[in-house]
C-alpha cells in the first residue's frame, strides 16, 4: 500500500514535471503586422517572409545584420562573369521525409513566376537567371545574361519548396498540405487574421530551436500588443511603440532588445517637373518654376531640419540621425556621409543664392499609419521649414491614399515622407529603387523622379562588377554623389525594438524579422 502510494506520488510528480516542461517549451509571439498567406511565393511582403522563414529555408540565409550565410547552399562562387555555382547541402530532408536536391531548387524557380494572381511577385529576384544546369543533384549552375553580382543576395529571399508542390496553388499552402519546407519548424495551423502555429522540426539540419510549439499571434494594435506582453499572454512582441518604450524598459518583468534597422526614413523631393504642384508663392499661386529642381534649394531644406530634435523628441530616441541610405556597417554605406548639420542660417543663405530670398510656400505630404510616428515627424518638419523662410503646410493621409496618389502615374505631391527598408541588406537596393532614373528595372519607387546620369552610370558599373571590393567602392561613390546632390533628404534610421518577458533573450535583427528560432532562455 505504502509502496503503491509512493509510486503514485512519484508518477504524479513526474507528470507534473513533464507538464511544466511542456509548457516551458511553448512560445507565443505577438506580431505587429498582418500576414496574407503561408505560400512563400505568393506575396513579396515582409510579414509573409517572416512566417516563411520558420517553415522554409533559402539557399542563402541572412544573419541578424543581413550578412549572407550558408543556408541550403553550403557555398557559392562566380565561376565566370555570367555563371554562378551553388553547392547544395547534403542530407537535408523536407518535413514529409523526402530528400532535398537540386530538383527542388529548379521547381521553386519555376514556381516563383507562376503563382497565379500574386499581388507582388518574387520574380524580380529570379528573373536575372536565364538558365540553370545541374551537373549533379547537389550542384547548380545559374547562367545570367549580364554579370549579376547580386544573385546570392536575391536568392536569399527565395524560399525553397518541394518539387512535389511546384504546381500547388496558394490555398494548399494556407491549408497546410503544401506547406512542406526544410525549415526549423513544421507547419501546424493557420487561422487567417488570428494566428499561425508551428512545431519544432526535430530533424532540422541546423541548430535546433528551443521551442516545441510556437504560436505567432497577429496583434496589430500597438497598445493591445504591449498589454498582451504585460499580461504574459505572449512572451515576446515586435515593433515596440516608442510611447511605451521607456515604461517597458523600466519594467522588472520585461527585457528590451534593440538594433539599428535597415530602414531609412527620408523626404522624397520632386526634382523632375518644371512646375511642381505643391510649391507656391507666399500668396498661394503656383510658382512658374519648380524651385526643388535647384540642388541648392534641396540642400537648404536638408539644412533646415533639426534631426537630433526629431530623434530625441518625436522618436523618443528610437532612431539615429541619417546622412545616407543605410547605416554604417552595411555593404556600400559610405562612412563619409554624415547627417546634415542643423543650420537654419545656412539654409536661408542657400535659398537667397538660389533666388528665393523670401522663401516660398510649400505643402509637404506623408502617410499617417505606415511608419512609427510618421505624422508627428512631418508636423515637426513643417515649422522647421517655415523657420528657414519656406511657409510650409503639412498634410498627412492614410497610406492607401498616399501611396495611390503619390506614385506613378499621379505623382500628386512635391515633397513627401517615405521609408525604405533594404531587403537585400546592401545599398544597391535603395540606389536602384529610389535614386536611379525611372526606367526598366530602375527607379521603381523613385517618387521624386530624381535623375542624374553620373549616378546612373556608376550604379550600372557597380551592378556589373562581380568583385565585392570594387563593387562596394563604386556603390559608395554613387551614393556620395547622389546624397551630396540631395537626390533625397535622409532623416533618420529607425531602431527595431523587441520586448520579451524576463528570462528570455532575442537576437535583434536589422531586417525587422521576429524568428522563434532566435528566441532562447536567457543565460
Amino acid at each position: 500500500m505504502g509502496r503503491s502510494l509512493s509510486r503514485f506520488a512519484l508518477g504524479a510528480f513526474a507528470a507534473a514535471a513533464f507538464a511544466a516542461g511542456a509548457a516551458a517549451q511553448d512560445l507565443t509571439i505577438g506580431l505587429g503586422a498582418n500576414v496574407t498567406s503561408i505560400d512563400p511565393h505568393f506575396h513579396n511582403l515582409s510579414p509573409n517572409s517572416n512566417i516563411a522563414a520558420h517553415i522554409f529555408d533559402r539557399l542563402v540565409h541572412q544573419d541578424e545584420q543581413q550578412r549572407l550565410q550558408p543556408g541550403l547552399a553550403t557555398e557559392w562562387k562566380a565561376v565566370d562573369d555570367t555563371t554562378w555555382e551553388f553547392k547544395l547541402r547534403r542530407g537535408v530532408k523536407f518535413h514529409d521525409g523526402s530528400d532535398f536536391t537540386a530538383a527542388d531548387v529548379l521547381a521553386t524557380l519555376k514556381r516563383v513566376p507562376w503563382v497565379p494572381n500574386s499581388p507582388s511577385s518574387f520574380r524580380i529576384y529570379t528573373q536575372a537567371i536565364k538558365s540553370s544546369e545541374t551537373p549533379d543533384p547537389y550542384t547548380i549552375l545559374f547562367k545570367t545574361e549580364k554579370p549579376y553580382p547580386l544573385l546570392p543576395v536575391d536568392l536569399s529571399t527565395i524560399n525553397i519548396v518541394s518539387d512535389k508542390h511546384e504546381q500547388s496553388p496558394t490555398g494548399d499552402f494556407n491549408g497546410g498540405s503544401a506547406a512542406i519546407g526544410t525549415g526549423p519548424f513544421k507547419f501546424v495551423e493557420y487561422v487567417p487574421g488570428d494566428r499561425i502555429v508551428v512545431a519544432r522540426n526535430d530533424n532540422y539540419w541546423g541548430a535546433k530551436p528551443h521551442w516545441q510549439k510556437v504560436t505567432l499571434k497577429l496583434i496589430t494594435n500597438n497598445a493591445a500588443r504591449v498589454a498582451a506582453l504585460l499580461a504574459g499572454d505572449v512572451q515576446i512582441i515586435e515593433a515596440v511603440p516608442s510611447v511605451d518604450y521607456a515604461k517597458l524598459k523600466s519594467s522588472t518583468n520585461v527585457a528590451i532588445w534593440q538594433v539599428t534597422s535597415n530602414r531609412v526614413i527620408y523626404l522624397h523631393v520632386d526634382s523632375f517637373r518644371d512646375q511642381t504642384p505643391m510649391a507656391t508663392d507666399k500668396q498661394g499661386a503656383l510658382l512658374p518654376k519648380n524651385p526643388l529642381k535647384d540642388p541648392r534649394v534641396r540642400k537648404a531644406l536638408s539644412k533646415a531640419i533639426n534631426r537630433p530634435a526629431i530623434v530625441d523628441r518625436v522618436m523618443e530616441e528610437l532612431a539615429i540621425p541619417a546622412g545616407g541610405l543605410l547605416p554604417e556597417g552595411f555593404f556600400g554605406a559610405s562612412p563619409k556621409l554624415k547627417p546634415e548639420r542643423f543650420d537654419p542660417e545656412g539654409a536661408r543663405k542657400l535659398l537667397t543664392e538660389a533666388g528665393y530670398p523670401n522663401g516660398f510656400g510649400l505643402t509637404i505630404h506623408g502617410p499617417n499609419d505606415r511608419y512609427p510616428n510618421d505624422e508627428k515627424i512631418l508636423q515637426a518638419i513643417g515649422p522647421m521649414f517655415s523657420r528657414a523662410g519656406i511657409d510650409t503646410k503639412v498634410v498627412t493621409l492614410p497610406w492607401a491614399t498616399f501611396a495611390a496618389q503619390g506614385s506613378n502615374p499621379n505623382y500628386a505631391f512635391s515633397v513627401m515622407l517615405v521609408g525604405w527598408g533594404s531587403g537585400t541588406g546592401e545599398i544597391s537596393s535603395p540606389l536602384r529603387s529610389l535614386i536611379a532614373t525611372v526606367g526598366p528595372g530602375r527607379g521603381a519607387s523613385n517618387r521624386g523622379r530624381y535623375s542624374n546620369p553620373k549616378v546612373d552610370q556608376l550604379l550600372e558599373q557597380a551592378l556589373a562588377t562581380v568583385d565585392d571590393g570594387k563593387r562596394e567602392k563604386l556603390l559608395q561613390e554613387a551614393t556620395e554623389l547622389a546624397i551630396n546632390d540631395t537626390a533625397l533628404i535622409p532623416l533618420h534610421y529607425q531602431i527595431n525594438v523587441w520586448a520579451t518577458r524576463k528570462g528570455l533573450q532575442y537576437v535583434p535583427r536589422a531586417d525587422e524579422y521576429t524568428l522563434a528560432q532566435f528566441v532562447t532562455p536567457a543565460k
Partner: protein
Amino acid sequence: MSVFIIRRLIQSALVLVVMSLLVFVGIYAIGNPVEIFIAGDADQAERERVIAALGLDRPMWEQYWLFVRNAALGDLGKSFIFNQPALWLIVERMPATLELAFSAMLIAVLLGIPLGMYAGYRPDSFAGRSIMAGSILGFSLPTFWVGLMLIMIFAVWLGWLPSTGRGELGSLFGIRTSLATWDGLAHVLMPAVNLALFKLSLVIRLARAGMRENLPMDYVKFARAKGLPTRRVIFVHVFKNILIPIVTVLGLETGSVIAFAVVTETIFAWPGMGKLIIDSINNLDRPVIVAYLLITVSMFVIINLVVDILYSILDPRVRLADVKG
C-alpha cells in the same frame, strides 16, 4: 403582408446596386491600389503584370460591368491580396463576429432590461440614480479606451482573463464556436462586455423611459384595481408594452454590433469581420470592401424586416400594410 415584403425586397435591391456603384467610384477615385501592396523594388513590368492580373487595366465602367455580371451569378470576386473569394473570406470570419455580437447583445438585454425597469420603477432611490449615472458613463466613454482599461485591469493587473484573441473552439449543437469551451468563454468575456457597454446603456434608458411612461397609464391602474399582484402587473402587462421601442432599437443595434465591431475587434485582436474590413480598406482591397458592404446592407434589410414583423406580433394595433418602407 406579402405585398409589403415584396415591395421591401425591390427597394433593397435598388439600394444594393446604388451602394456598390458608389463604393466602386469612390475606390477608383483614390487611385491605383497596386501601389499599396506591391513591393517597393518591383519594376514597372511587374507592376503592369499585377495591374493586368487584377483586371485594373480596364476602364472603370468595364470593371463595374464585369463585377455586376459575376455578382449576378453569385461571384463577388477574389480578394486582391489574399487571392481567395471575397465572400468566402467574410463568411470564414463571420462566426467569430457573430459569437461576439451574440454575447454582447445577451449581456445588454439580460442586464439592461432589469436594471432599466428597476430604475424606472424606483427612479428616486439611490440604486435607481446610480444605474442612470452608470448609463451615462456607458454612453460617453469611448470604446477603445474602455477596452484598454479592461485589459489593463483584468489581464495585466489582476491576471484573471486573457488579454487578446479568440479561445479554443468547441462544438455546441453542431456549431463550431468558442462559446462552447471555458477557454473560449474567458476570451470572449472582455470584448463582449466592451462591445455591450453602449447597448447596455441604451437598453437601460429605453426600459426606464418605458416604465416611467407606462406606470401612470390607465391600464396599470385598472389592473391594480382589479387586485392583480404588482409583480404580475409589471412583468406581464407593463413589460410587454415597454418592449416595442426596445425591440426596434435592439434590431438596428444588432446589425451595427455585427457590422461595426471594428474597434473592439482591433483592440482585442479578435479575428472577425471588423478587423477584415479595416485591413481591406487599408489595402484598398475592393472586392472584399464591396462584398462586405453588400452583406452588411442585406443584413440590415433583413433585420428591419424582422423587426417590422415582430411589431405586429407584439402590438396587434400595428398592421404591416400601413408601414411605409
